[in-house]
């Protein structure tokens, strides 16, 4: 069709196309800024607009009228709503997420303390998903319709369908309470608490850095179960997507070309088809990682894992709105950040969008 030719006009090759690339990156950041504004607008609405009386939520219903009025002015509720929003943005920009009622500390400090635990959990789970899920998906696609495919499909469906909190409970019952193969809830046994200086906040790294191998082993034993449970979900998702991408690529004509060249089948699969799949998987892995950061809420509750999910849940029950919204914003930013990173990585790896 004649209309499809504009692209052809520019088929000059890999020359100097920097300005248009720059434009694309500027576009990515512009959309990032917009997303951020949307994110904060929503948390702002949830925190300041939707509750019937935000002041009451803070001071409680037994406070005197004086205290009430003081907080009312402090919150700037007498000002127009958009000014309140800009003030809110200003505070966020300074890293000020307000003070937690529950811990009486700045929410930002709290989050810094709780976040590494979540990061540790989600990272290990994602790695599990990548290193187990991808080969599973490839094997399933190559053996489509035969038993390896069926096995992968069943594992994937169960990982997809099981409520993660329930799976965690059952796993605790079986592997901790009955079999005693792993350590129980929490990140460490009580008597190891506070020995290692929290440098990174990621316990296993801290322990390794200070040479406390016994603590390292204990931390690992605590991590295995929650990470596997969370990883099951990641694995199911990644395996399933890998399988469908792989099937798609294997039916492409360039695969036939590779076979015509006389290539061994293993190289056709890993050298040609998988290279294309990998490009698509970057986005999927990013999505998985981001969703695990938030999906850990339930796992953390079940395993008493002192991460950000548990922090948000506890704050919620204590009506600690600052902490809830602070946590939401931080997780939201991670979400957006990871997606941005995978988008940029994708642009770097795929020659077609470079």
């Amino acid at each position, binding site marked *: 069709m004649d209309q499809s030719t504009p692209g052809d006009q520019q088929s000059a090759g890999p020359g100097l196309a920097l300005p248009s690339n720059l434009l694309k990156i500027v576009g990515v950041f512009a959309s990032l800024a917009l997303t951020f504004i949307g994110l904060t607008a929503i948390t702002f609405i949830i925190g300041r607009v939707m509750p019937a009386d935000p002041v009451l939520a803070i001071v409680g219903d037994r406070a005197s009228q004086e205290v009430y009025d003081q907080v009312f002015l402090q919150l700037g509720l007498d000002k127009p709503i958009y000014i309140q929003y800009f003030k809110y943005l200003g505070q966020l920009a300074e890293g000020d997420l307000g003070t937690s009622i529950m811990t009486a500390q700045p929410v930002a400090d709290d989050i810094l303390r709780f976040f590494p635990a979540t990061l540790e959990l989600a990272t290990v789970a994602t790695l599990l998903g990548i290193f187990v899920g991808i080969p599973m998906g490839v094997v399933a696609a190559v053996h489509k319709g035969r038993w390896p495919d069926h096995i992968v499909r069943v594992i994937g*469906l*169960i990982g997809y369908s099981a409520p993660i909190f329930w799976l965690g409970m*059952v796993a605790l019952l079986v592997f901790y309470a009955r079999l005693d193969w792993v350590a129980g809830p929490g990140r460490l046994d009580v008597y190891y608490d506070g020995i290692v200086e929290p440098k990174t906040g990621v316990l296993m790294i801290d322990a390794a850095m200070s040479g406390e191998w016994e603590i390292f082993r204990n931390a690992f034993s605590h991590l295995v179960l929650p990470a596997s449970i969370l990883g099951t979900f990641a694995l199911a998702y990644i395996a399933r997507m890998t399988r469908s991408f792989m099937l798609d690529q294997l039916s492409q004509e360039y695969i036939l070309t590779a076979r015509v060249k006389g290539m061994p089948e293993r190289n056709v699969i890993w050298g040609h088809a998988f290279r294309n799949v990998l490009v698509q998987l970057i986005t999927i892995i990013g999505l998985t990682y981001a969703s695990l950061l938030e999906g850990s809420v339930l796992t953390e509750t079940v395993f008493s894992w002192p991460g950000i999910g548990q922090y948000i849940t506890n704050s919620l029950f204590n009506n600690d709105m600052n902490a809830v919204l602070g946590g939401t914003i931080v997780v*939201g930013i991670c979400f957006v950040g990871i997606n941005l990173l995978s988008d940029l990585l994708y642009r770097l790896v795929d020659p077609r969008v470079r």
Partner: protein
Amino acid sequence: MLAEITLRNWLLAEIPQSKSQARCQRVYISWLAFRRNPVAVIGLLIIASLVAVAALAPWITASDGLELHLSERLQAPGSEHWFGTDELGRDIFDRIIWGSRITLYIVALVSIIVVPIGLLVGTVAGYIGGWVDTVLMRLTDIFLAFPRLILAMALVAALGPGLENAVLAIALTTWSPFARIARAEALTIRNSEFILAAQVQGVSTAGILLRHVTPLCLSSVIVRLTLDMAGIILTAAGLGFLGLGAQPPTPEWGAMISLGRQYLIDQWWVPTVPGIAILVVSLGFNLLGDGLRDVFDPKSGG
């Protein structure tokens, strides 16, 4: 027997005689393809039983699942109580049956909110394009970039816990992928020649969107919806588990797990049975969705 053969002939006739026959034939041929897929049929059976059980709940159960029998607390599964009783002596089997209504209620309500919004936003953005597309998709991206469970939690925190608020929160975080899918479909459809042909005929934009674009988006939206049902059920159960969804004594499965949690070690059935119920139903939706995708796969034609 004879009637069956003629019906089959009518459904498979080479030359359909009317529009309705042609439509029935298309549905029937899809059904034949669907029927060959055992996985999908199992999924359909699970969902059909869920609906049947929910509809027949008053006749299946002995109690309304809320009555307390403190003398019969935490009884093991047996002939008296098939799935045992919980910490307040309520029959777990009955509670599971009544809970199926809640699950269906959540799923139906979310679908009713999410699908029309997603379709409308997606098809309009994809077909009209330009700045309309940019604005609508930015909006969609903002919701897409949101951590689903945490946003639902924050919303419930502001609005107060409860089933309706949980549904609202889930709907708010679920519609965006549908808009994305509908837009992607609309984008490929809008450049096809049959759309140009409709424009040449003088069909209005609304007519093209409604009669030409939407029917083609529908199948992938339905597949995605079925697959998403599992996610919706799990999120609702998760909110229930955290105490942010349906409130006790409502027999919502997630809340039941949460309450039964402390009895896990000695009375394992209390939290295990609702867990299995959730697993089976979300498995059913996933199987059905997989099957539907195979049937609707655009590559297989029809």
